[in-house]
């Protein structure tokens, strides 16, 4: 029933018109441009781009990899570009920061084959620790940036960007946001190319080596490339202007879709001229022309007043002193994503129309459904064991991934969090100044992403930290992409599709970094886990405990079976002491009509609640023939 787009997206039929996810439209745009290389690190809301490329890579003859981190994804893709291949890499907004080092020099060197970096933004920080505005990379590092409003924009821009990148010599950024990535819209397919770039690296060290004497020459070339980019964008077709009034509105990203909707709903097409900004740098002549045609401007864009300030500067240079409204006039906030209702209110204010009557629906107080570790997650057990041994006073530095869900009561496994791989370095910092043994939690994928250098750093400083690596053999939070510890023989997949008969050994990596106190456990083996944790706590310097157990949800998907029978509460023995609920926070334990029960469908039979029950009220369900 799914249109996972695996095959649909490969259709070589230019009459195809489908409603597909923005992320799938980006893949289609790449295919239409003849993309030859795709690398990525998963991150919401960008993940489906890589997952789709992973599905079709073989059929479409594309080199594909889930890289170990975003910096590496960018570097391999850039080198592929230098060898002539049209290359692409994907990540979320934070990944762009993670890859900032190579990204900052790439425009100096310039591309070979066209290169497009997809960096998906997350206004309102729906699935991220911050919202950041990647559009500043155009002024910061001279990247042309495409800013789609719809899935069709995303397809057209991606396709266009490759040729544009080759003509200008610049790598480019495509920056869709959550509402574009995760919305479906009508997409009109173009045909697939008959030919692709010829590949082969031609040696030319002064061209490819940015040592200072070359970098200064490249810096001057960069100015020319960026000017060329601005000139080309003027005829790119990504700056459509509609309507005819003297009241101007400039909008970008998904806020452009909202604005077009509001204008149509209000029936004010004749009063308003609407200008979309679909890319940066905004061509100066185009803006001057727009500013001359209107008497005032409202700027509609999410996050920082980026276009607003750009337009204000252009108006000043053009000697056009008209009101330019937006965030600095409080028509819009600088925080969070917009909504059609917010745009409706601002447009009415701008045009001095009555505001909509405030007959707001009266939504009663409702219980929330916050994200939580799944029932049966082996690392709820890991958290529980660590807390038993290290107690409540120990500082727990946590990291990015499912295990961030150890935050808050009752698991209390997250006192501190920053970014990928930060748990180990933060634990080092805390331990060094407090003199107290500090715990770092990190998952398998995050450990390889950026935990390795932090661990080496802790070992050389002999920090009093215990690193608990929660290995579940998969990158679960972003949708079950393979990690280095995935077992590809058992359906876990592998990063580059290369079949390996053995999983990567975290033990070998940790030992190789010089860690002496290393323990490997299965968290469901209580005795061994508690003993290992006690020893890790008593150790001097760095100790590492690796908890291995597969993600239950992924395991059930792959094997299509439940390995353990669900548990049930004997109501005669349960005295509602609530220990199981207060200690574990398992979503499988419910209160129905005042009685504590276990949801048979949700329970995965991990047994942890039975272990903490002092009244022997919880036991495996006797199921016939199940």
């Amino acid at each position, binding site marked *: 029933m799914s*249109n996972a787009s695996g095959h649909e997206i490969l259709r070589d039929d230019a009459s195809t018109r489908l409603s597909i996810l923005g992320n799938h439209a980006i893949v289609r745009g790449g295919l239409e441009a003849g993309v030859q290389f795709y690398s990525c690190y998963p991150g*919401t809301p960008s993940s489906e781009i890589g997952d789709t490329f992973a599905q079709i890579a073989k059929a479409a003859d594309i080199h594909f990899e889930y890289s170990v981190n975003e910096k590496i994804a960018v570097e391999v893709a850039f080198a592929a570009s230098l060898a002539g291949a049209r290359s692409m890499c994907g990540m979320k907004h934070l990944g762009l920061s993670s890859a900032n080092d190579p990204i900052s020099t790439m425009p100096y060197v310039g591309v070979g084959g066209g290169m497009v970096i997809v960096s998906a933004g997350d206004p309102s920080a729906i699935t991220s620790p911050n919202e950041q505005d990647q559009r500043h990379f155009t002024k910061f590092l001279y990247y042309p940036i495409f800013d789609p409003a719809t899935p069709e924009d995303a397809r057209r821009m991606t396709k266009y960007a490759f040729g544009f990148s080759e003509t200008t010599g610049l790598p480019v950024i495509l920056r869709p946001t959550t509402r574009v990535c995760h919305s*479906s819209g*009508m997409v009109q397919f173009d045909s697939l190319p008959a030919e692709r770039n010829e590949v082969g690296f031609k040696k030319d060290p002064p061209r490819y080596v940015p040592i200072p004497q070359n970098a200064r020459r490249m810096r001057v070339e960069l100015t020319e490339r960026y000017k060329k980019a601005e000139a080309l964008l003027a005829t790119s077709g990504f700056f459509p202007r509609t309507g005819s009034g003297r009241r101007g509105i400039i909008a970008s990203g998904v806020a452009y879709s909202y604005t077009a909707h509001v204008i149509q709903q209000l029936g004010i097409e004749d009063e308003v001229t609407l200008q979309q900004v679909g890319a940066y740098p905004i061509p100066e002549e185009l803006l001057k022309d727009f500013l001359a045609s209107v008497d005032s401007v409202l700027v509609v864009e999410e996050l920082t007043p980026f276009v607003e300030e750009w337009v204000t500067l252009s108006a000043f240079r053009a000697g056009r002193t008209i009101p330019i409204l937006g965030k600095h006039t409080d028509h819009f906030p600088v925080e969070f994503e917009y909504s059609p209702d917010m745009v409706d209110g601002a447009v009415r204010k701008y045009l*001095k*129309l009555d505001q909509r009557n405030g007959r*707001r629906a009266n939504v009663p107080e*409702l*219980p929330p459904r916050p994200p939580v570790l799944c029932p049966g997650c082996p690392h709820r057990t890991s958290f529980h064991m660590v807390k038993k041994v290290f107690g409540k006073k120990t500082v727990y530095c946590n990291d990015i991934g499912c295990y961030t869900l150890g935050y808050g009561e009752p698991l209390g496994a997250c006192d501190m969090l920053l970014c990928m791989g930060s748990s180990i370095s933060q634990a080092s910092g805390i331990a060094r100044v407090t003199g107290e043994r500090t715990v770092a939690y990190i998952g398998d994928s995050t450990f390889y992403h950026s935990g390795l250098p932090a661990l080496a750093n802790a070992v050389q400083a002999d920090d009093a930290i215990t690193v608990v690596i929660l290995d579940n053999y998969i990158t679960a939070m972003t949708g079950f992409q393979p990690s280095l510890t995935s077992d590809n023989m058992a359906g876990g997949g592998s990063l580059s599709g290369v079949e390996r008969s053995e999983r990567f050994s975290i033990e070998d990596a940790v030992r190789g970094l010089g860690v002496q106190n290393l323990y490997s456990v299965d968290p469901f083996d209580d005795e061994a886990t508690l003993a290992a944790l006690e020893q890790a706590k008593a150790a001097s310097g760095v100790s590492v405990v690796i908890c291995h157990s597969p993600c239950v949800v992924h395991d059930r998907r792959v094997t299509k079976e439940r390995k353990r029978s669900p548990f049930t509460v004997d109501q005669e023995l349960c005295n509602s002491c609530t220990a199981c609920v207060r200690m574990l926070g398992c979503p499988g334990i419910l209160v129905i009509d005042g009685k504590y029960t276990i949801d048979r469908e949700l329970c995965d039979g991990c047994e942890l609640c039975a272990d903490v029950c002092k009244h022997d009220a919880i036991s495996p369900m006797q199921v016939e023939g199940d």
Partner: protein
Amino acid sequence: MTAPDQVSGAGTRVLVAGTGGQGVLTAARLLCDCFVDLGHEVVSGQLHGMAQRGGAVQSSIIIDGGTCPVIAAGQADFVVGLEPVETVRALPVVSEHTWVYMNTAPIIPYVVAQRAARKEADASYPDVDGLIAAMHAATSNVLTLDATACAIEAGSAKALNMVMLGCLLGTGSLPCSADTFWEAAVRRMPPKLHDTNSRAFRAGVAMTAERANCGGAA
């Protein structure tokens, strides 16, 4: 100058709401794909955070109504609620013109148990009759049913979303008939699901047809 206070606008706007695992996104995807197969222009948006199984999920489907994937306040023509609390959470898009189909079988959020164990306030699932009343306060067009029971009767609790799609298509107010929709839908389903899903969908269609014959929604 006065602007219209409530504009329904061109197109049909449907919001499907429920919890992760109930089949909200599958139902939305099916609506989206089938209406495209039938020659319509469809956009669809999803709203779900980090929630895996058990989180709140909403999906909007806009048929022949432009490119904006988000439904503005009061602008849903239909709300398809797979769970009582999640139906009420969709109230902001409901106006007196909206038709609401609401499954009355609750999925209890785990926070209820957490609150009960800590003896906090709001430590129970809201009274379902009160939730129905909250919907009735916004629109008189509310159809309530135990769609989970209907789905189980049809062969599988997992067919809940098909019962609810049946209710929606059974109104006859979408751009195609229930029969035409279902012909398109089965083409997109694995054969082993055809029987159960068809029974579930028909049960939903019968539910709205029956109420319509009684001269209005319950």
